[in-house]
């Protein structure tokens, strides 16, 4: 039986790595007595995997874990038990049974949705900036290749959507970008792009207190949350 968990990673937990997160779940699953299936062989380990890596320092309310059980247990039961043993800054927000034929979440993920705080100076020109950016067909960037040379890539197709919102009087940017094995747009690259368009110096993306909102699939240009896909009916 396969389970999909959506969880948050906030506060001090922003600073733990992918592997640290895996280990945290391994221990939590044992504390909560969740019957996780073990792999075969010399060094048996629990069968769980995280859907997508998250850069250290970035908080999230939309991380996903793919879990295989050796015994049946209701998804809601798993959610309650885990929340009972996890720290406050790591909450299981949703738990669903996955369709047995669903691909691994790691292979399926295509898009990430982030919320970024914009520098105060950009709040006025924000809407115009974004509209103008989205109008472009070509947003070039020089990336260094593995061999050390430079290659030009077009970032525009990797930007699915940009929208502005205000939260408690502060301007926030909601950005839905491609973070798949085909193309991976980095947050720093997005920030560099915005800075360039605004005619100002770029800033370290962590200054924007990035928060990952969700992971999803690209459904003909529209973002579709992982939570909606692959669930067992």
């Amino acid at each position, binding site marked *: 039986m396969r389970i999909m968990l959506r969880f948050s990673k906030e506060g001090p937990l922003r600073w733990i790595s992918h592997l640290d997160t895996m280990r*945290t779940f*391994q*221990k939590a*699953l*044992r504390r909560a007595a969740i019957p996780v299936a073990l792999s075969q062989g010399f060094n048996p380990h629990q069968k769980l995997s995280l859907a997508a890596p998250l850069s*250290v320092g970035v908080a999230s309310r939309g991380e996903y874990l793919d879990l295989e059980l050796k015994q049946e247990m209701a998804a809601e039961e798993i959610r309650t038990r885990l929340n009972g043993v996890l*720290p406050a800054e790591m909450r299981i927000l949703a738990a669903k049974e996955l369709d047995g034929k669903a691909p691994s979440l790691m292979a399926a993920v295509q898009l990430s949705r982030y919320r970024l705080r914009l520098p105060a100076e950009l709040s006025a020109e924000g809407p115009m900036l974004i509209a103008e950016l989205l109008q472009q067909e070509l947003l070039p960037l020089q990336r260094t290749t593995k061999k050390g040379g430079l290659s030009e890539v077009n970032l525009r197709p990797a930007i699915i959507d940009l929208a502005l919102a205000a939260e408690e009087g502060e301007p926030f940017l909601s950005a839905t970008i491609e973070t798949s094995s085909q193309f991976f747009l980095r947050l720093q690259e997005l920030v560099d792009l915005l800075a360039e368009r605004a005619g100002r110096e770029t800033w*370290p993306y962590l200054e924007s207190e990035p928060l990952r909102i969700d992971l999803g699939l690209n459904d003909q240009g529209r973002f579709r949350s992982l939570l909606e896909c692959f669930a067992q009916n």
Partner: protein
Amino acid sequence: MKTCPLSTVQLASLEKPARYVGGEVNMQCKEGPEIALRMVLAFPDLYEIGMSHTGSKILYELVNSLPWAAAERCYAPWSDMEKLLRESGQLLGSLESARPLAAFDFVGFSLQYELCYTNLLNMLDLGGIPLRSNERGEGMPLVIVGGPGAFNPEPIAEFIDLALLGDAEEALPRLLQLYRDLKQAGRYERQEFLRQACRIPGIYVPSFYQAQYDGEGAFAAMNVLEEAASLPVRRAILSDFDQAFSCSQPLLPYIEVVHDRVVLELFRGCNNGCRFCQAGILYRPVRERSPEDLLRQAETLLQHTGYDEISLTSLSSMDYTQLEELIDALMERYAEQGIGLALSSLRMDTFSIDLAEKVQKVRKSGLTLAPEAGTQKLRDVINKNLNEEQIMEAIESAFKAGWSSLKLYFMIGLPGEDDSDLDGIVDLAQRILQSYRRLKVKGKLRLSVSVAPFVPKPHTPFQWGGQIPLAEIDRRQQYLRQRFRQLRGIDFSSHDRQTSFLEAVFSRGDRRLSAVVLEAWRRGARFDGWTECFHFARWQEAFAACAIDPAAYAEREYATDAPLPWDHLDSGVRKSWLLQERQKSVLQETTPDCRYGTCGGCGVCMDYAVGNRFAGEVRR
């Protein structure tokens, strides 16, 4: 929970921000009007080291179990964090509440070894606390040290207010209770508190004593300045472990640390009587926990942690009288769930190897054994009761059981050592290689030999003798390196001799060295136990600036009737017995473990009304 005051970008600039943000599972943040006392357990080393230290976790839970007390934590900041703190003007604070160290009632440091002194000073400074005890006024915390280093804290006596010698499980709550009582009665005053505190067994207040030196600059006496202070300061010894506090929800680190598994302390103490070993003195007699108690603890700990490995820990785990029964019970209960067992401190005999094999059925990581000396003569000198036949038998069992990776630990510079003893190390290693080949075991043997310079420790039979000169350590290391290079197939490593030299200076040091510690810290000395951070030149300059010759301390030979700078601190055993053991070592006479019936007269049982407590029958 108050968060770390550093910004996201600041934290992101650090090597491992997770060291400084807290939020771990089983962390306790106690706020509220009922909290009368707040203590910060400040570990004078990196997070990864401190979070591997079981003693600190026990104290954390112990103090937090008192309804009116709160314990928080702080670890030595790495150089990048120190720079950030100094540049931003922020004070070093606790992980739980980001309170600066200066805001606590007690700041407690665990002294595991001598090379953490500069980290201790650095943490006080970064935490807003005046370094010298006599500079701290009423509003400042009380700085207390514990751990094995508390048995000779003289080189840093000037910087601390109290030391706790021995088991903290009873002594620390008593100390904290005294503080609370005085505060509640409105009668708290720093000096009055210290006067009453020094009456608690195990508590040492350095300011109540003054060191006296003679005309030649040798230590002459420790004068008692305060009526309430005792001479000697007695050690705190817990007689019964089953009644003692034990951890049930230890702190779980998120990041990788050195030791990350359930730790079961089988017993405290060790009576093997190895003459170089300070721990064997400071923790005797042997007090075992019952298997029932240990099984109960294991269950609780697994429930609260979710670990998949249990480590059986003690100074010499193999001596636990109910070891086989315990291992069988643990494996019966947990093997199916995939929970593994790890054994530390293997003894060099076939029984131990068989047991280790039982436990490591699936995967065999490397085996570590410590013969310590290469010849029978030297092993008898240090009372490591082990003969060549036993060693070879044990190692052959290991090979037959499937171990192909072996690490051997030895010391050089032991009393009475000469080059033939060094040859003994090489010959032993060679015989092990030959034995492996003879047994025709599959695969290649990975044999490594690690050698460390002997550091004479206070409160041991070897406390009167000095370390061999640095140049001689170098010569012996080179000699061994040469010989092992000729042998081939053996990986040889030797511990940095300059670090060992510095350890030797401080381990039998006196109060005059505090100026050097301060000077070295001022010159940027930090994390001296870390190769990448240790700069011998800084220390040499510090010694020169204070007009002190470090070799005079490291190599000092004390006459057996000379007063020692740590005589006023009682380790539990009688000085006369240490002297007796020293004399026996010169004659190459051994002393058996007292568990087999013959009391050697060390005095701890008689003087402290304690005794060896075994969970089962003592077998040979």
